[in-house]
């Protein structure tokens, strides 16, 4: 049976067909749906872990116990999970262990465009790269076989266009969950120097064998064509190239690390010009060049952003279709939703002219005009450490105006360490936890503080107040951000303190509450068009030539604007 499937859904199906026992993840675009789809299979234990490091560690434990385990994350998540990854490479596996990492060339939803293939090279683990949903499913199953055959974790790399494209998938019957016997084996699983030295030898032997064997793997295949143009490509770029160079000779690499050297050398000897087409870093190009083979790659393309069929056609054939001129138009950046609780916090931050070290989530959008409430944003959990560093560099008085801003899920992910640091090292920062009771940006995933698992089971919710207090913070309060006055007062008080403090701004994401209040309207007699309400950056409040206007298709009736208006000109429709 064939079915149209999202790449991420096909990965989940592959895990199901491979008889996976345990699936873990921390949500992150473009990888999130993998584990959401896996959670629908009753046969598989699935969890949202607090972060990617824990997710990988749970999967390693499951593998050592003898079950097949899959862990999924976005590219920057692999940075968090890099510590266990590099040593899991030495320990190898018992049940198969597959790490799915979704890169985001072009940064559709990410803070950088790092190339995960470099991780496979430096951690000495094999990496497969599918180019559509069918391959996504097939490669996951193959990855488990390779993992168990070669005693290694295997990374399967997706990019946004594979993860978030739908294509046809032929379904197969699932294998039954077969557990490997667990035998205590400290020489393999306890990685301390003496054991690790021996294991490193095994790692290099397995990678050498894999490189040799991969010349015979079906996923590395030559498609003979016109010998004047030879193309080496993998993943989505293979599809882009196939579209515009259907006549060319192709070597499609299903395994991007280690490379099938003999196969590549043979292919290179049979074509006149050899192109290596790969988004981001010249990982394959540089390796082939190091073997003394001349290739054409990054001199025609960029290490930035995505490739495209037109781009490849222009670079290689020198022609392309006629394209109409692009228009200069006002941008349409993403915005905080109408009714979003974060808006209220950023409104106050701007009003009090505070400097905010920000973090990763919907609230990063608070950096954009007109709220402009965030000064810096680097990675998950960084806001708290950065606020502390700000203070330590410039002293307490200078940093009185500095706060850290972090979401509930991000705080649990990796913010807590920063808070412990502040208390331990006598910092006085004020940290704002924006608790909207969900992991919102990635599409509403549960987390330890929501009290629900990925399967919807009710569990004890992590008590953020107790957690904060346990670090040694004495001043912690919970405030509804929609109470603007109280919030402002609390902010003023806490930043003045000579002690560290935490304000938890608690109000659920506007999209969680489906019951919409009626939209507001502008009382034209009272409105002076002063524009104060526009400072909220609410997409439902708009300035037209003849005054302020509320878009009733967008307004969710949160009434935040009524607290900002000095003339009581914003009214509920009902009264």
């Amino acid at each position: 049976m064939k079915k149209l499937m999202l790449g991420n859904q096909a990965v989940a199906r592959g895990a199901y067909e491979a008889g996976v026992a345990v699936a873990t993840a921390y949500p992150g675009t473009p990888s999130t749906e993998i584990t959401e789809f896996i959670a629908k299979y009753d046969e598989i234990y699935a969890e949202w872990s607090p972060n990617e490091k824990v997710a990988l560690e749970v999967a390693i434990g499951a593998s050592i116990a003898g079950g097949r385990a899959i862990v999924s994350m976005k590219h920057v998540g692999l940075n968090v999970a890099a510590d266990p990854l590099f040593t899991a490479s030495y320990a190898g596996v018992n049940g198969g262990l597959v790490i799915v990492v979704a890169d985001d060339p072009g940064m559709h939803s990410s803070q950088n465009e790092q190339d995960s293939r470099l991780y496979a090279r430096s951690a000495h683990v094999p990496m497969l790269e599918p180019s559509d949903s069918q391959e996504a499913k097939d490669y996951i199953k193959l990855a488990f076989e390779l993992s168990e055959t070669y005693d290694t974790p295997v990374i399967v790399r997706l990019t946004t266009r594979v993860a978030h494209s739908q294509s046809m998938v032929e379904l197969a019957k699932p294998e039954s969950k077969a557990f490997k016997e667990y035998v205590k084996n400290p020489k393999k699983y306890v990685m301390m120097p003496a054991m690790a030295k021996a294991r490193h030898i095994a790692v290099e032997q397995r990678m050498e064998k894999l490189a040799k064997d991969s010349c015979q793997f079906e996923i590395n295949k030559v498609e003979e064509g016109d010998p004047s143009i030879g193309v080496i490509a993998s993943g989505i770029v293979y599809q882009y190239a196939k579209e515009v160079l259907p006549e060319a000779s192709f070597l499609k690499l299903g395994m991007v690390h280690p490379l099938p050297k003999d196969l590549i050398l043979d292919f290179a000897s049979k074509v006149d010009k050899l192109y290596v087409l790969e988004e981001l870093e010249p990982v394959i190009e540089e390796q082939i060049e190091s073997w003394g083979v001349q290739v054409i790659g990054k001199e025609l393309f960029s290490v930035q952003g995505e490739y495209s069929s037109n781009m490849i056609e222009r670079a290689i054939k020198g022609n392309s279709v006629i394209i109409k001129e692009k228009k200069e138009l006002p941008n349409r950046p993403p915005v905080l939703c109408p009714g979003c609780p974060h808006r209220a916090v950023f409104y106050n931050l701007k009003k009090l002219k505070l400097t905010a070290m920000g973090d990763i989530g919907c609230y990063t959008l608070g950096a954009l005009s007109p709220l402009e409430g965030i000064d810096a944003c680097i990675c998950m959990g960084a806001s708290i450490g950065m606020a502390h560093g700000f203070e330590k560099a410039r002293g307490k008085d200078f940093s009185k105006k500095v706060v850290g801003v972090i979401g509930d899920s991000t705080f649990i992910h990796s913010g807590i360490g920063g808070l412990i640091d502040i208390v331990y090292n006598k910092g006085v920062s004020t940290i704002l936890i924006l608790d909207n009771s969900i992991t919102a940006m990635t599409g509403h995933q549960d987390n330890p503080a929501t009290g629900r698992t990925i399967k919807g089971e009710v569990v004890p919710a992590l008590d953020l107040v107790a957690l904060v207090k346990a670090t040694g913070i004495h001043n912690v309060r919970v405030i509804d951000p929609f109470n603007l006055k109280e919030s402002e007062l609390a902010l003023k008080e806490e930043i003045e303190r000579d002690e560290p403090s935490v304000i938890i701004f608690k109000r659920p994401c506007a999209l969680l509450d489906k019951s919409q209040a009626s939209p507001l309207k502008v009382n034209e007699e009272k409105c002076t068009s002063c524009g104060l309400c526009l400072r909220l950056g609410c997409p439902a409040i708009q300035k037209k030539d003849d005054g302020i206007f509320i878009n009733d298709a967008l307004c969710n009736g949160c009434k935040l604007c009524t607290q900002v208006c000095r003339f009581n000109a914003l009214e509920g429709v009902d009264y």
Partner: protein
Amino acid sequence: MKKTNILIVGVGGQGTLLTSRVLGSLACKMGYDVKVSEVHGMAQRGGSVVTHVRFGDRVSSPLIEEGRADILLAFEKMEALRWIHYLKEDGMLIVNDQAIDPMPVITGAAQYPDDILNQLVNEISNVFVINAQEIAKEIGNLRVSNSVLMGVLAQYMSIEKEDWEEVLRSIVPPKTVEDNLKAFNIGYNTRIECEEGAVNI
């Protein structure tokens, strides 16, 4: 059969994803090879969104390239203008006559262009303008404007109306099936609504 490329553009939250899913299922049902590319994550929060639908005997890339879309289905008119360079020379534009102000316009930092429909008609010979939002309002469900647009699109595709309706039924939320079918049929039966200068095809 040659490949068909339909680019769907709009503003996050307008229902472009549902439309691409309907088209994907439909092409799948017709036995074509299909690829659909979507945007998730940050861009969905009221940003400019685009989904690509491609089908034919064999489809390699999931993306439609600039200058190669057969049909551009625009849920918002400035988004139509933003993406018209994706249309091929003789491609067709179906545009919802609705304006949604982006944040720079809301705050007064930029102007929403006032002559968009004229610009579109000047650039493209095949333009179908329809106010799907108005029609949805009349039906009494603002969320079915995407079905109005699908109805218009269905006029220009060689897929039976019954097949469209069957797929719609299976994809939209059960409670909204009747409203969506009504909306689809209005779109399907609306003949070209010419803004001045628009050309019927």
